């Protein structure tokens, strides 16, 4: 288009030579590709750290890999997984503990946020509630292990109050161990949701609430009918992020229960770790990774995308 107009003498008294010296022309190619060039390094880096391992895991999942050579075994690893009650157990444990923990955290954080956000000392509350989140999870796991298992502080307190008459055998009870893991997670990560919910509540238009109050609504009604529905997108995003971190929980299991008793607290992450790095059954562990990867992709496409879209507007 430009070329034809340059040769159009009717409209261009200036010669092309002058044009070139006066105005620099930009490269169309560079204009079109510049934004891609800017994201490229980040995307390549992430592809390297996700796509490469993904493909590697898929390939490895078709082999029996112990220490030496890779022996192709076809779908054997998957067939074995299908019948592996420990794998299914790990999947179940992950879901079970994840759901309970996430529900508890969400309800607690909402309750706390709703009571705190109008408070004049909300900044102070936030700082106090924030504290658990900033400790190293491994240290937290150790301290909880000490408190509940090794030093039996929890049992001791209950005994002193006369609530039980002997030491609790938390360690040997599946539900006791699960409860301990959940408690640790609730203690450490409820603040995450609390901070987000408080911010969301503070960001809400006060006038809506005031109008409702003038209409005679009580606080419970305001909460259920106004604040909560307005917060839905925020809650969705926060739960998605938290839910992902809970289902990939590893450190606590590794330190506190080692998946026991009777594999009752073994999560998928721990299952993969144990299969791969304890029993050096890498092909088998990779097959489990691939299944988890597929689940992740489904969740990401279906849930995460939607949550983030609605939260951003």
């Amino acid at each position, binding site marked *: 288009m430009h070329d034809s*107009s340059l040769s159009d003498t009717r*409209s*261009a*008294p200036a010669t092309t030579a002058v*044009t070139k010296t006066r105005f620099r022309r*930009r490269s169309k190619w560079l204009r079109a590709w510049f934004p891609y060039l800017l994201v490229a390094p980040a995307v390549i880096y992430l592809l390297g750290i996700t796509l490469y391992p993904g493909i590697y895991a898929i390939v490895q999942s078709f082999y029996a890999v112990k220490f030496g050579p890779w022996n192709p075994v076809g779908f054997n690893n998957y067939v074995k997984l299908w019948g592996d009650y420990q794998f299914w157990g790990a999947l179940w444990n992950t879901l079970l503990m994840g759901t309970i923990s996430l529900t508890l955290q969400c309800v607690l954080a909402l309750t706390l946020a709703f009571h705190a956000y109008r408070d004049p000392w909300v900044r102070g509350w936030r700082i106090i509630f924030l504290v658990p989140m900033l400790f190293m999870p491994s240290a937290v796991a150790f301290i909880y292990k000490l408190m509940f298992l090794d030093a039996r502080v929890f049992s001791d307190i209950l005994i002193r109050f006369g609530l039980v008459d002997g030491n609790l055998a938390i360690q040997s009870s599946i539900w006791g161990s699960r409860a301990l893991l959940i408690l640790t997670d609730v203690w450490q990560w409820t603040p995450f949701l609390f901070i987000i919910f408080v911010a969301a509540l503070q960001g809400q238009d006060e006038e809506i609430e005031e109008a409702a109050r003038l209409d005679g609504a009580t606080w419970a009604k305001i909460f259920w009918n106004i604040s909560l529905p307005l917060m839905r997108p925020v809650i969705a995003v926060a739960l998605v992020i938290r839910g992902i971190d809970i289902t990939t929980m590893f450190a606590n299991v590794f330190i506190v229960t080692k998946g026991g008793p009777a594999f009752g607290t073994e999560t998928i992450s721990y299952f993969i770790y144990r299969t791969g790095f304890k029993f050096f059954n890498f092909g088998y562990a990779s097959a489990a990774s691939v299944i988890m990867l597929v689940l992740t992709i489904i969740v990401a496409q279906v849930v995460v995308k939607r949550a983030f879209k609605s939260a951003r507007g």
Partner: protein
Amino acid sequence: MAQIELKGVSKRWGAVWGVRKVDIEIADKELLVLLGPSGCGKTTTMRMIAGLEDPSEGEITFDGEVMNAVDARDRDVAMVFQGYALYPNMSIYENIRFPLRMRNVPKDKQDELVRRAAKMVELSDYLNRKPGALSGGQRQRAALARAIVREPQIFLMDEPLSNLDAQLRQAMRVQIKYIQRELQITTVYVTHDQIEAMTLADRIVVMQGGAVQQVGTPDEIYSDPANTFVASFIGAPPMNLIDGMIKDGNFVADHVEVPDVGIKTTGQIRLGIRPEDCAVVSSAEQRHNMKGDVYGVEPTGDMTVLTLRVGEKNLEIKADRDYRSELGVQENVVFDTNRLYFFDSQSGERVR
């Protein structure tokens, strides 16, 4: 120092048209105002002149040179934005100096130019402040200084005064016009405010729906509108439009009759008459063109805006400053028959 030409310029995003086949010629040193309601494509047109947006079709030339493929940074235009767009992390001095720095003006020259520009907009005492510490009017002037500091070949101003209050706006308007005359730089000024357009412009381009409706001097736009849109957009209160018929050379409508209008066509037509070209007559016996019931009386001090209910329509009349009336009273109105406008009732185009 540049003559600008837009030839068949269009901009669209998918099915959305921002600007449709616009042809505008802007003379050297001229102050041209793009006027139109919000969303009519003014900003888009200006951004295409600046090179911030690529036209989908058509050509933009400066002094006859096609600029389509030239980057905004190389076009030597300066722009003043509605939101001022001052760099928040830099002081006012640094803000004004920024374009000089980008163009590698020698260091010692920079300081001199910055101070001169600041002086022109009366900001010399505020050079060390950050934009956040200035009032709206001062920010506006800082943005102006940043635009004039390097004496570009073209000024572009996109509703630069719309965030200011009325008094400040008037003062700034005068200042902008003065500076533009002083520096003799071709300027395109965008606004939706007809007063601004009328007072500033050498010529006005009225836009609507992405297309140019009329180009002309403020006088031409006001007294010789090309269609009903221009007629009703300019002037406050706007021109009255009355649908009626031409019968035997006379205009006839509900409660309205104007003899010998000198229009050759017959049938459906729309009559336009400005509120100031109407006058209330004191008695029903006198010659009059229109009858209506008083619907509203709004004294503004220098005049009284009288709204009459004529048939199904409300029409406005600028009455004498002392005019007062009860609501519902019948009034008779005479038109200045030298200032009648006729428009096609379908297309809205002027009929002469």
